[in-house]
């Protein structure tokens, strides 16, 4: 089964990457974009041998403990 985890910087945390992209869009001929924030997108494949409730726990732990740096990031899980 496939699950998606989205990790984004907390709103008040500076995003140098997003800033640099936004600030240089004019040179790429794109104007009107006032803000860009960059996050991470994970597609996670879980073995079907793992039961449904176990899976929830597993993905929660993966998202919270491995994929996210809780000091600066937060996460969201999209179950399909």
């Amino acid at each position, binding site marked *: 089964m496939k699950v998606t985890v989205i990790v984004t910087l907390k709103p008040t945390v500076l995003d140098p990457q997003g800033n*640099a*992209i936004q600030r240089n869009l004019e040179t790429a001929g794109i104007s009107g974009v006032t803000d860009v924030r960059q996050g991470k997108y994970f597609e996670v494949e879980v073995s079907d041998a793992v039961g449904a409730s176990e899976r929830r726990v597993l993905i929660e732990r993966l998202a919270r403990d491995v994929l996210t740096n809780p000091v600066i990031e937060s996460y969201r899980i999209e179950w399909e």
Partner: protein
Amino acid sequence: MKFGVVVFPGVNCDRDCRDAVTAVTGQPVEFIWHQETSVEGFDALVLPGGFSYGDYLRPGAIARFSPVMAAIGAFARRGGLVIGICNGFQMLTEAGLLPGALLKNAGTKYVCRYLHLRAESSETPFTCAMEKGRLLHMPIGHGDGNYQADRETLGRLEDADRIAFRYVDGDGRATAEANPNGSVSNIAGIVNEGRNVMGMMPHPDRSFDRILGSEDGRLVFQSMIGALSRV
């Protein structure tokens, strides 16, 4: 013969490239600011290493939109010599002047070390001062040097003798252990179809003086001078 070193915000090997070209070729070298729209008057261009625009988004991705890139493209189409080193290689692939892409190193970490390269072709303006199979000692320093291309592109590179360098061990074998970043087929450098544009991850600009550990990098710039004086 005038060399131009193109300066994008965030590159940090611009001075090294200038110093290396000056030391090896004795020819005049000028910096070209990324906002320039013309590269008129230059005989060869160097796209240096570093972190253009922080390498945020993807290495070389934002630099591709700088005004000077259009001029560099036209220069290349006219047959002008363009060498991209490290971040410069990444810019050339992003701009479509070289095929393939440079992904994050297989180990995911930045790697800075000396290693061995094998010159795979002496039929390019960047390698003509080396015999095919020649081993070179040169450093790398990158986090995204994992060269990847689809099967068809690879076939074309192989068939047309367009692979300039491969990572090898001290005995000249292109083994998995000798590959520092996971590049397909141990590729460290390639040329375009016209053979006048080369991208390479290792740094000839850091190996032009024995005191730095090696002077094998000189051969790359000597090749360029040789090729330029022949036309």
